[in-house]
């Protein structure tokens, strides 16, 4: 697979992912996804074995780099600052006069080893990302068959995942919140007024859908009043409510002769 990938990549002229191409004097912040990337870059630049890194030295370089970004008015992401704080803390501990094998000394060595471990682990995943990049390059140059001749006319269908479900709900909740905002300045309505409104609408249209009253973002008060008004009109035999099938929308029909 590796050779195939390389072949295709060469053939396609795709530059390999590399963050080592920058010159020492150019600063490309987006080259470093995070503090671990920057640390690895600094270690590579020094050509030191990752196992032999000196915390004091790497801290100075790291802070120097952040300083340079600041001078260039480049905003430094929070993740970089968290690492900076940690490094400064460790370095300040190292500056304290302490006996050679004190607890602090041990703590610092543990931190150093932990950092080396984290950097090595991080590097592996960078390489895994590179491998995925190469595979993706190959796959993006390959076409499966397009829509086939038997395709059913099922437009707009999606095969849903949990993510779709949450996203759909999130979207509706957002819309709903907006709707509620519009209702805050609602005026008082009476059942009588609602009955009049329904009579007027029915005289214009003959029939109404129940959902009509719910689609307009009316307040809960409006909906309750509407509901009572509908019941009242039913009792007066002015309207009848018809549901053609279970779950179908309810139709409000006028019982009065149209003139």
């Amino acid at each position: 697979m590796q050779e195939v990938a390389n072949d295709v990549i060469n053939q396609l002229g795709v530059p390999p992912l590399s963050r080592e191409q920058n010159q020492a004097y150019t600063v490309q912040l987006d080259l470093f996804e995070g503090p671990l990337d920057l640390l690895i870059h600094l270690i590579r630049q020094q050509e030191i074995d990752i196992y032999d890194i000196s915390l004091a030295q790497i801290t100075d370089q790291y802070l120097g780099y952040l300083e340079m970004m600041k001078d260039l008015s480049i905003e430094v992401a929070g993740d970089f600052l968290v690492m900076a704080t940690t490094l400064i803390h460790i370095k300040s501990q190292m500056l304290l006069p302490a006996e050679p094998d004190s607890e602090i000394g041990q703590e610092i060595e543990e931190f150093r080893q932990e950092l080396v471990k984290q950097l090595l682990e991080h590097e592996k995943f960078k390489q895994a990302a590179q491998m995925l990049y190469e595979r993706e390059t190959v796959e993006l140059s390959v076409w499966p068959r397009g829509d086939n001749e038997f395709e059913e006319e099922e437009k707009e269908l999606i095969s849903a995942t949990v993510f779709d479900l949450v996203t759909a709900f999130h979207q509706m909740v957002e819309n709903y919140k907006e709707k509620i905002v519009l209702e805050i300045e609602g005026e008082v309505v009476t059942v009588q007024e609602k009955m009049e409104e329904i009579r007027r609408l029915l005289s214009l249209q003959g029939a109404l859908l129940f959902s009509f009253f719910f689609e307009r973002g009316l307040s809960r008060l409006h909906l309750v009043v509407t509901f009572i008004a509908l019941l009242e009109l039913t009792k007066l035999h002015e309207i009848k409510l018809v549901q053609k099938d279970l779950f179908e929308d309810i139709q409000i029909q006028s019982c009065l002769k149209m003139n």
Partner: protein
Amino acid sequence: MSENELTNPILAMLFVATDPVTLAELQEVYPETPREELRGIVDRATAYFNSLQMAVEIRQIGGGYRMSTRPEYHEDIRTYLQTKPSAKLSLAALETLAVIAYKQPVTIPEIMEIRGVNSGSTIRTLLEKRLIETRGRRKVVGRPIMYGTTKNFEIHFGLNNLSELPTLEELEEVLSPAVD
């Protein structure tokens, strides 16, 4: 094969294309090659391909060339296409299902309030697909039926139980507008 260096790329185009590929279209891809030469290449590629007597053949149709399966395999293909589970939901069904999943047990008027539209027919679809079920009646005026999700819903969405459903708060950072 490849008597001509264009033969294979052209066959690849016929494979990918959803409509018949015309000579004019091929001419656009290969502006250097004279039209008649191009015609010769496609015709010979077609003849060669069809001589292999494979499951697929190239036919001239609608002023172009099209790869399609031979009619004798249509029945098997139809059976195959029917095996594909129709696990697909319309957007309306997905929305209704989302409200039911997060607000269950919930009634149709309540779903309507959140969705802003009538959800009757999608409720039916979801019941048919056994993604939701009835859960008794709400003790309010009209005693509307309440709905909730089924075991099948959990299986469909790969959940062990409902508590695995991400909460809105949790996905807030994931769902907030992408920064990069």
